[in-house]
């Protein structure tokens, strides 16, 4: 970098880009190339020749069901996260509850949206696990045994979904609050002047404007939970067959018995999260048309 600028003055050869060389080298070596290596590996057989067999083999064994469970958990936790997060954000933005609640809620959301991982799994085990706070409370005071009476176990589909909500709801609150603040008072007043009820205003004005934001955030939340590894492993061990857990086992010990099939599985993960993220970015651009 030190030599870039003086050289530029002496020669016409542009060397300004050298200042970006360390960054470019780093991202290439530790982000782009490792990812490309996996992607290319997904389309190679053991001898290195091009093949689509690995992608086709994704449809064998337990792999389709693990993708399906992963997609179901991600979609459910994203949908519930959007719904509850939207409700909470709306409550603090439109003044249904005192104004001072908003700032602490936003700060908390900033923390909680970053708090995935092993400790989160233990927090939910301590609360909804077999001898957790809520489980014991319900059993002693109401005679309800979660597992027996409601069929709820923290180690199951719903257990993982509820745990994921701990970082999904805050992320929704963080992203949707600015969008809710962007709804102009004039629109509501104009609708009221034209004789619209509150329900009509929401159905015909506010929700259509917010729709791209909500759908975009849904896509982001989906990707967010699809790639979550640590929480799932600490919570369920290997009892729930989802993609990140299966991939984790594959990296550790080639449980599929075919390295290239492992690459294909990782490639599938990239495809799913990439689609969700592209959807998010596209919908965000659309949302900004109205909300500035």
């Amino acid at each position: 970098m030190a030599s870039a600028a003086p050289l530029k003055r002496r020669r016409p050869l542009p060397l300004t880009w050298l200042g970006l060389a360390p960054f470019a080298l780093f991202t290439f070596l530790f982000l782009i190339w490792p990812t490309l290596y996996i992607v290319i590996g997904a389309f190679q057989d053991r001898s290195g020749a091009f093949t689509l067999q690995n992608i086709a083999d994704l449809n064998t064994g337990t792999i389709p069901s693990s993708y399906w469970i992963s997609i179901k958990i991600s979609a459910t936790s994203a949908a519930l996260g959007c719904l509850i997060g939207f409700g909470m954000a709306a409550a603090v933005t439109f003044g249904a509850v005192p104004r001072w609640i908003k700032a602490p809620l936003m700060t908390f959301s900033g923390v909680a949206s970053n708090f995935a991982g092993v400790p989160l799994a233990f927090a939910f085990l301590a609360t909804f696990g077999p001898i957790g706070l809520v489980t014991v409370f319900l059993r002693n005071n109401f005679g309800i045994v979660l597992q027996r009476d409601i069929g709820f176990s923290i180690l199951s589909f719903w257990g993982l979904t509820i745990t994921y909500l701990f970082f999904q709801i805050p992320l929704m609150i963080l992203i949707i609050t600015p969008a809710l603040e962007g709804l102009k008072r004039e629109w509501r007043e104009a609708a009221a002047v034209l004789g619209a009820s509150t329900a009509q205003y929401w159905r015909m004005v506010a929700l259509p404007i917010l729709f791209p934001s909500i759908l975009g955030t849904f896509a982001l939340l989906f990707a967010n939970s699809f790639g979550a590894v640590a929480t799932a492993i600490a919570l369920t061990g290997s009892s729930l067959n989802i993609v990140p857990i299966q991939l984790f086992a594959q990296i550790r010990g080639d449980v599929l018995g075919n390295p290239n099939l492992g690459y294909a599985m990782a490639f599938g993960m990239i495809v799913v999260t990439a689609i969700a993220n592209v959807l998010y970015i596209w919908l965000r651009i659309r949302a900004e048309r109205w909300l500035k």
Partner: protein
Amino acid sequence: MSLYARITGWIVLLFGLLYFALPLLGLAEFSLKARRGVYSLDAYSKIIGDAEFQQTFLYSITMALVTIAFGIVLVVPTAFWVRLKMPWARPYVEFLTLLPLVIPAIVVVFGYIRLYNTSSWLPLTGSILGTNLLLAFGYTMLALPYMYRAVDTGLRTIDVATLTEAAQSLGAGWTTILSRVILPNVIPAVLSGAFLTFAIVIGEFTLAALLDRPAFGPYLQRIGANKPYEPFALSVMAFAITWACMGLIQLANRFAKHTKAAAR
């Protein structure tokens, strides 16, 4: 605001707050139950005295500090250079820094293991030092979106071009400009990026576990299977560290506003 809307708002908010409060309460309560019948700090004192805990915790703290140092050295000059000389490259650099949020970390580390194994051109996983280095690079990659955005926001508030020219006319070289002019001016932004990096690295699981390094995250997961109360006490501590980091970020941001106000 109608009464109906108010009631709905309160119900939704209280339901949400209950959902967030219960797991934290459950975790704290459970971590205190190590002694039968009474609340005690037994689980905490036992785990803090555990040698493996001390080692893994120290390892993760060291890793976090190395990652922060490396992140600053990588991100500050890059963001500075982009602002000063190559504004056209900004969207591309920003895109690259956001990629770690798109590509799952488990996929990238899968690539590391295959790309930098003992029989490759750069056998990083062949030695302990190499693996530690690879892990630090991986953490830098994970923290890149947060670090870059923080530093770039910090640079936006200062006049990079004028400061650089002034320093150059006083005879400063690039190293001096970066370390003694630019860096002190964006310290609050760097600090908030650093604290977030710290919070991410200290409990990180996936990279450390797959690269088989003795870090705090994998240790916590492992003892979860064979110790009754200690993992919960450790989780409370991990929560506290995350909260402390976020509190320090708020403090750093307030400090930034304060110095700007004073400068005016």
